[in-house]
């Protein structure tokens, strides 16, 4: 299997090298030869241009004091003033730390667990069970965060909650006031996040595993490789590109966080802010009464730029190791 991969890479490299050597004319004829491929991308490119690139002129709003009588373009430039509220407070460090730590943990745990579950799902022999399990793991993903907030409350509520009323007494532990103790929330939020999102990632990784040519496994079985060896030598390397791309995409959004998870699930409880306040919830609270579009675009731009820089860096690292797995 390794040799196959090596061969293809060698071939590609040759192709790329020769491609680089081609002159302009050759390049043009190359483009012409693959015109059908170019035609295929037209609808998508046009769509992205209209839906995403045209509105990007709106990024200037982050640097403007918008007055609609003058119009967006003619409004006054105010430099980075709209960004100030993100950095000026003592909370700035806390929310940045929370956002980064939570997202790093989520990326790590969600990916590992999703891959593990996907691999196990693929091993389930009975079709009925396999399909049943697949459906069930996706259910949490379909429930809105507002509802999840209520379900978590049903578990953790001080007086009527399942855990305080049923579980802790059974273990002989005294009731815990969950909504006033920030220290529990990193764990609670991580569990809720895994519960809700693993199914989604799992389905994607399962599709990748299903795409693996069964011949590899057949050959390995004949060679007497154990299940575990097969997973390590075949499954994991072959789904690595998909895992890489998913991880890169998640890194790009590392400064964004799931607003519902951090706002709805802790029920906006003030006492928990030290471990539940992240950039998105901070911005939401800050602008709730201000309703300033300049400041909200500033927050979005800040999050995007950081994510962008991180992805470019990680993509560089990835492409050093394997050009094919890189994003671009």
């Amino acid at each position, binding site marked *: 299997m390794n040799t196959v991969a090596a061969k293809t890479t060698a071939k590609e490299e040759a192709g790329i090298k020769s491609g680089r050597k081609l002159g302009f004319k050759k390049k043009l004829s190359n483009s012409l030869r693959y015109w059908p491929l170019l035609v295929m991308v037209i609808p998508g490119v046009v769509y992205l241009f209209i839906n995403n690139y045209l509105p990007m002129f709106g990024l200037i709003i982050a640097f403007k004091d918008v007055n609609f009588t003058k119009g967006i373009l003619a409004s006054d430039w105010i430099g980075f003033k709209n960004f100030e509220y993100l950095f000026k407070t003592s909370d700035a460090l806390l929310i940045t730390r929370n956002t980064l730590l939570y997202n790093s943990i989520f990326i790590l745990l969600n990916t590992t667990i999703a891959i593990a579950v996907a691999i196990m799902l693929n091993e389930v022999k009975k079709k009925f069970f396999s399909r049943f399990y697949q459906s069930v793991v996706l259910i949490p993903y379909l429930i809105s965060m507002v509802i999840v907030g209520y379900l978590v409350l049903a578990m953790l509520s001080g007086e009527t909650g399942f855990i305080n009323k049923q579980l802790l007494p059974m273990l002989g532990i005294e009731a815990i006031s969950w909504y006033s103790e920030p220290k529990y929330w990193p764990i609670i939020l991580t569990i809720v996040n895994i519960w809700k999102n693993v199914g989604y990632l799992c389905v994607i990784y399962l599709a990748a595993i299903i795409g693996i040519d069964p011949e590899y496994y057949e050959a390995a079985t004949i060679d007497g490789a154990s299940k575990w060896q097969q997973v390590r030598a075949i499954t994991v390397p072959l789904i690595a590109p998909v895992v890489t791309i998913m991880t890169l995409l998640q890194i790009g959004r590392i400064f964004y966080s799931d607003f*519902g998870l951090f706002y709805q699930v802790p*029920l906006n409880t003030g006492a928990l802010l030290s471990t539940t306040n992240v950039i998105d919830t901070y911005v939401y609270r800050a602008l709730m009464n201000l309703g300033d579009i300049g400041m909200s675009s500033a927050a979005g731009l800040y999050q995007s730029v950081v994510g962008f820089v991180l992805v470019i860096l990680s993509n560089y690292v990835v492409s050093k190791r394997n050009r094919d797995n890189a994003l671009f």
Partner: protein
Amino acid sequence: MGKKMTSFRGLCLIMLALVLVLSACSGQKNGGSSNTPNDGAAAGTDGKEQNSELKPYELNVAYLNIGTATDMPEVQAAVNAITKEKINATVKFMPIDLGAWQQQINLMLAGNEKLDLLVTGSGLNFGTQAAKGQLVPLEDLLEKYGQDIKKIVEPDVLKAASSSGSIFGVPSVRDWAADYGVLMRKDLVDKYNIDLSTVKTFDDLDAVFEIIKKNEPEMAAIIPEAASVAVVTSLVPGLIDPLNDDNGVLPGLDNDLKVVNWFETEQYASLLTMVRRWYDAGFIPKDISTNQTASEQLVKAGKAFAFMAHMKPGYENKTSLLTGTEMVAVRILPPVATTSSISNIMFSIAKNSSDPERAMMFLNLLYSDAELVNLIDYGIEGKHYEVKGEVIGFPSGVDANTATYNPNFGWMWGNQFLSHVWEGDDPKVWELQDAFNKAATKSKAMGFSFTVDPVKTEAAAIQNVKDQFKIGLENGTLDPVKYLPEFIEKLKAAGMDKVIAEKQKQLDEWAAANK
């Protein structure tokens, strides 16, 4: 994943809209340059002459969509018959849902969509809209075409709708003031022979709650006015003028126009001590901060005896319907009116309007034409309602579930006192309300609105600090001895002093201009 992000943004915005509609505080912002209305028709012409000169025009009116309005097309046609005759205009009603309001109005005002009149309010981002140049200043228009409005809405009151010295909205005529106190279950008050006449201050309530606590151990003696509001929060407006956002307030609604930090005052500290005492005594449920259920529902389910309330005449009757048991009101703080309580719901003219004069003429009709107001509020007589003596009600065979026009939004449309009274209410409810409004203590800063723009960075940071401490302190779940100093310190670090200084500066300027 991109999609997910968008939905959560959306979710924020829906939450935002809801919070803004249900609460009533907002930052006011700097009024930029304005859209000067065309100095078209000459002043002093009477209605008929105007009509012959006016070209037909369609007014697009955006308002909050509440309740049932299936028959709106029919009502709209009837409204148009009136407006066609009086101001040669037709009205296109544009109902917008509560949850979508903030989004859609912002987007409409940002673009050039057809929009002449819209509902605005201190809780609906009025300050920002005025400051960003999205609304038309109304002084000249009111002078020329709004004489009936000026007759009803006194200059003092009208000033509440101003931003940076210009008027940008016309408040609807409704409850402009509120008094503050506690609503209690009457059956239990009677059962335990509680003498409510001895309750003069909030501190007198301890004795009442003690009786309930002793006899009804399963029941909370006192809970906040609503979910996600704290016990103390809803009585504060009876004690101070929040000057829009309670970052810097006027205690006693006067204080010689000296702005102070409310959270540093003795009065605030003593309120917190009181509520902490209630919490420690077990009057307030331990998990109150995570409560998601409406207070009326909790009373209905037998989980609570009383809740805090800001009230108006007849309030306890309506609440009793929701709680399913008769409620008795203990009114502790007398009615007060501030800029915020008046500018809660208004109509404004959008900068998108191509005929602001006509928009003002229609607005004027809403304050003078009882037929029009009744039509909009209740629908067509005989079909949607029937006059039953002094009051009106559903025609026979129709009820709240089968009604085809029953929007319940009289408080939005102009002069509600022109409208009929619905059965079940006191037939004199409008007179009572009017008297109540007039009796209310008016803040000395009535008509001042704070422009938060110069200190918006600080205001943004302050909001996060408030979210961290305020509800906990004001529900008694946080010990004020320990956390109040921390709260004050973090507020200062977030720039509270700068905001107060700015507010004082603006208030002084306002006072000088309004001598």
